[in-house]
Every structure is written in C-alpha cells, then in structure tokens.
C-alpha cells in the first residue's frame, strides 16, 4: 500500500505494508535514523516522535494510521544547521551523555513545551516519565527542558 504523510514539513509517499511500524518506515524507508529503537514495546521512549504534535512511540504506531498526518522527528528540530532552543539547552545543562535517549527526550520535551504548561519539576518529570535514561539521573534533562521552556515564555 502507498501512504502519504508529512515528515518534518516535507510531503512524502511511502510504499509499505500497512502494519509496518512508523519506526521502521522512518529509519529504513526514509533513512531518518535519529529516531532510536530501544525496547520495541512502548517501555523506553527512545522512538518518541510527534504525530500531529502529540508525542507517541513510533514502535507502536502502524504506518496505516499515519496516512494524511504530520510526523516530526529529531531531524526536524534544527533549522538550517542551527540547533533549536531545546537542543541548545541540552548542551548547556549536560542533558545528553551517551545520547541513546536524547532524540526521544527531545521530542517529549518539545511536546511539553508546546503544551504551554508551567515548567515545574513535577510536570516535567511526568512529561518524560515514558522516556528512560540510564546515564543522567534525569536532573540535567529536566533542567534543560525547564530552561528552554522559560526562554520560550520570556523571549530573549
């Protein structure tokens, strides 16, 4: 079957079995390997992407349900080689170590910032509760999301 979707703002058409995971379509068909596979079972969040702006696990979404919809992956965050505010904040706070969880964390963080919720620690913890990190102990990730959210609220 052939499906039309938007990926990082660009229209794409993919030919794939309808039950193929969005994760496999992104990584194998479209060569977007920024999205990682950890568990393949919805437990780790390494495969998090935005689907029409909502954070989802790409390992649990069949491509047939993405027809006509918009997907944002980690590759869609930087503009013309310039990191976006959240990516920059991760670098500043040391929110990324080995980096395996980072693409997923960035997408969960983006969804949180876009929700406009006040960047309080508990709320951020809840927003990234579906994303596991073995390295950082989460604190620096939370700091990064809070920092980017603050900058979004108070521009400049």
């Amino acid at each position: 079957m052939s499906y039309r979707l938007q990926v990082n703002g660009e229209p794409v058409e993919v030919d794939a079995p309808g039950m193929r995971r969005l994760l496999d379509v992104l990584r194998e068909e479209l060569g977007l390997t920024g999205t990682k596979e950890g568990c393949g079972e919805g437990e780790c969040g390494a495969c998090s992407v935005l689907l029409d702006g909502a954070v989802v696990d790409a390992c649990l979404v069949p491509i047939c349900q993405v027809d006509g919809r918009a997907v944002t992956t980690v590759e869609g965050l930087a503009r013309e080689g310039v990191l976006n505010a959240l990516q920059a904040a991760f670098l500043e706070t040391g929110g990324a170590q080995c980096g395996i969880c980072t693409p997923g964390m960035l997408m969960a963080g983006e969804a949180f910032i876009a929700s406009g919720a006040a960047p309080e620690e508990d709320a951020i913890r809840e927003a990234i509760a579906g994303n596991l990190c073995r390295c950082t102990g989460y604190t620096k990730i939370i700091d990064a999301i809070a920092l980017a959210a603050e900058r979004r609220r108070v521009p400049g």
Partner: protein
Amino acid sequence: MPNAVEPPVASPSSLQDAYALLAKGGYRPIAGGTDLMVQLTGEIGEPPERVLDISRLDRLRGIERNAGWLVIGALTTYTELRRSPLIAELLPALAEAAATIGAAQIQQRGTLGGNIANASPAGDTLPILLATDARIVVGSGRQERTIPATEFWIGYRTTARADDELVLRVEVPLVSDRRVRFRKIGTRRAQAISKVVMALSWSADGRAGAWRNVRLALGSVAERPIRAWETEAILEGARPDEETAERAVAALAAEIHPIDDVRSTAEYRRAVATRVLHRLIREEGSR
C-alpha cells in the same frame, strides 16, 4: 528489527464497511495499538491473520451527556479523558485512572475501548466501569447490543464480545450524589502495570452518614476484573468507621483470589488490597 509479523490491514472509514469485513472472519481490530503492536512482536499469543484498523470510525469517538447517561466512545484516548470537562464534572475518577496509565506516549494513543476489549485482569479503567454500573455497547452487522459491565469480562482475557463485534461505546448511568474513588498500587512511577487496582462507589445517606448502593470492584486480584459482592454487602448501609473497615477487610481477604503466579505475590496482593480498602474507608469516615 521490524515486527516479526506484518499481517494485511484494512482501514475502513464507515461502520458498515467495518462490519462487512468483520463478518468475513479472521480480523483483529486495532485502535491505538498499544496492546496489539506489542502482541504482534509474536511473544504474546497467536498473531492475527488480518488486522482491521478502526481508527477512522468517527462514530466511535466523542464524550457526551445524554439524558441520565455519560456516553464515552470506544476510541476515546486517555489524554482525551484527562482533558475532558465532562469527565472532570461527571466521573473524575476515570480521569484520575487515565492519568496513571503508562506515560504521555501511551495516553496519547491508548483507548478506553482497547482497555475494555483487551480484557487484561490489570486493565485500570475496568474496575471503575464495574463500580459505576456501566454498560458496554457492542455492534456488528447483525445488531447492536448492550452488555452490563458485570457480564462483560467472563474469564481470563475473555469477554462477552463476539469476534465479529466492535466495542462502540460505554454508557455510565449518572447518579446524583454518587461518590467514586479510585486507587492503584503499582510498582514503578509511570508505565506501571498495577499490582492492585480498586474502585469504590457509594451514595451517602445524608442523615445517618451511612453508605448506600455500595459497589466495590478490583483488578489484578483474580483472573479477570471483579466486583467484591460479599464485601459490598458488609458495607451496604454501614457507616465508614473502624468497625466497618475491619469487617470489610476480613470479607475482602476471604473473597479475593489473587493470581497464583508466585505464591508470595498472591499474598502480597491480598495484603495490599485489604490495606488500601481499610485506608479508603477510614479516610472517608474522618471527613
């Protein structure tokens, strides 16, 4: 690694087309996929021959109040339940339960209908449906029929739904001054499969402070979500004091039969269930 199996899938956009496909047999529905996609890795049970994507069936969406009923479409996600002003007003316990299910990624995709049809003994919304006298409306090309929640989960991962039927919606009767409380004891913070989940509902009898129309339902303490009828009988007409709590806890301990996977786990679950009930009754008693 891609899914071990990628069965053919059909994505009908009308209920009539969906029913026609289901009538042919061999189709397993997919709603949010948070259970089915994991099952497709082949580790859990036989993979389906064919999959029916029901996500375009808009008649299965929406939350509304209809006369004396709260009506919730099967495709309603946990995120929608958490954000719905109607749920917040009429059945806040369901929003509370939704907030404990997985994390954001699961709540965006997982549906109430999927929780109902998947029929896990640990399904977190199911005790609430049991404790509020909800009914589940299923449909096929043959007919629509309404099944009381108490008759829906009939055995281990087995329901009263036929293979060619879809869960369409849930109808919860609205009862004035009904209180509903939800408690879940899990292992980890989020993403937790509950160890014990409990829903208790009652109407307070103004003058005497006694409880009426008591319903107590539990998950993860038997091979399916259950009502605790004997414990309800103890609580009916009683006041939520220490003596009532003691009697209710004794009844519950005798009534439930936690899954005997590991012996200690069964004992632990019984201990947790009784402790949670005791605390809940005492909290209400001291209000």
